[in-house]
């Protein structure tokens, strides 16, 4: 069926439907009149076109695309969507809008500790450096940075840093534990014991106290007798 015949059938059917809808009370008198007039005029145009042997009627293409309107709608949709996401989605601490994690200092410290315990000392040190940019006196960052420096082979540098912290912030237990280990590895048993004593005077967390248990046992045993007890393992 050609385009015009399609339209003729559609318009004539619409006129019939309109009658019945009007009879059923679906359409106001006024609307009925206007619609009927309109359909009739359109149907007549199509009927004449068919008589003249045309295949289709010219259709003007309306291209009043308003880019502004489109942009506005897109912007609005985007904004609404982001708001819905913020309202409904899960927000973890430290999440940014783009999902990059803007880590707080605490998170960076945790992450650095994790890296270090996995053997990635350079990664840990870099993170501590980050923390120190924002908070130059952060004792945890300073201490563990020194410890990781020591572990990664930069022994002198690490020792210096640890000593600095131990002087500036002597009440931080962790630094004494690490210094004890460092001194011990350098053969300075007495100074190591000294650090352990300092540690005892502080309220150290269990985690730190546990680290030095084998060391303490060995040092104290060595101090009381001349026999050295080998301890396997180590943190």
């Amino acid at each position, binding site marked *: 069926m050609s385009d015009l015949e399609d339209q003729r059938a559609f318009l004539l059917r619409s006129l019939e439907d309109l009658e019945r809808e009007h009879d059923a009370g679906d359409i106001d008198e006024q609307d009925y009149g206007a619609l009927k007039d309109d359909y009739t005029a359109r149907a007549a145009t199509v*009927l004449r076109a068919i008589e003249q042997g045309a295949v289709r009627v010219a259709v003007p293409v309306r291209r009043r695309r308003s880019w502004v309107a489109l942009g506005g709608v897109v912007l609005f949709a985007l904004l609404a969507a982001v708001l819905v996401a913020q309202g409904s989605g899960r927000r973890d601490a430290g999440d940014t809008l783009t999902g990059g994690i803007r880590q707080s200092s605490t998170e960076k410290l945790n992450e650095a500790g994790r890296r270090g315990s996995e053997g990635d000392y350079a990664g840990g040190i870099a993170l501590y450096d980050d923390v120190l940019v924002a908070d130059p006196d952060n004792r945890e960052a300073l201490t563990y940075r020194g410890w990781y420096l020591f572990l990664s082979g930069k022994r002198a540098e690490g020792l210096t840093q640890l000593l600095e912290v131990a002087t500036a912030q002597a009440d931080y237990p962790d630094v004494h534990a690490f210094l004890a280990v460092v001194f011990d590895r350098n053969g300075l048993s007495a100074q190591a014991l000294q650090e352990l004593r300092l540690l005892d005077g502080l309220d150290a967390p269990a985690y730190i106290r546990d680290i030095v248990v084998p060391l303490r046992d060995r040092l104290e045993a060595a101090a009381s007798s001349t026999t050295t007890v080998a301890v396997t393992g180590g943190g």
Partner: protein
Amino acid sequence: MTALVRHPRFRRWGWIVIGALVLVSLGRATLETGPPRTTAEQVRVIGATLKCPTCRSQSVSGSDSAAAKAIRNEITQRVEAGESADEIRTAISATYDDVQLIPKASGFEGLVWIVPVFVLILGFAGVAAGVARWRRATTRHATEADRILVNKALDER
């Protein structure tokens, strides 16, 4: 009675009353909280937002697996200790990988929230544009000749 009901003024006032009743009820329903929930109910709600780590696609509330039961016990204890739902969720996801069933609001995961809303709004805008485009700007008036022609065509059908 019927005459009264059919009267436009009655209906106008009726609509105002209906609107007021609906607004007041919805407002009350939104602002007030319901009765307190039992521990089991709170556990169910929290568990529904955590994935059972053993199962395929079930939540902790929806599974009978050992891991889900253990996590439910843990949630129960924490609920009884007075922890908030968020605290409990955070605590559980500290030991289990990928158990949060609510996607994050931000980052790539956030797209799962953003895209449908974006598409829905664009869909409505599209329909509005379509309706505006489909509508003719003016209605035409038929001439007497038009009417005769069309009536003839209608009779032939």
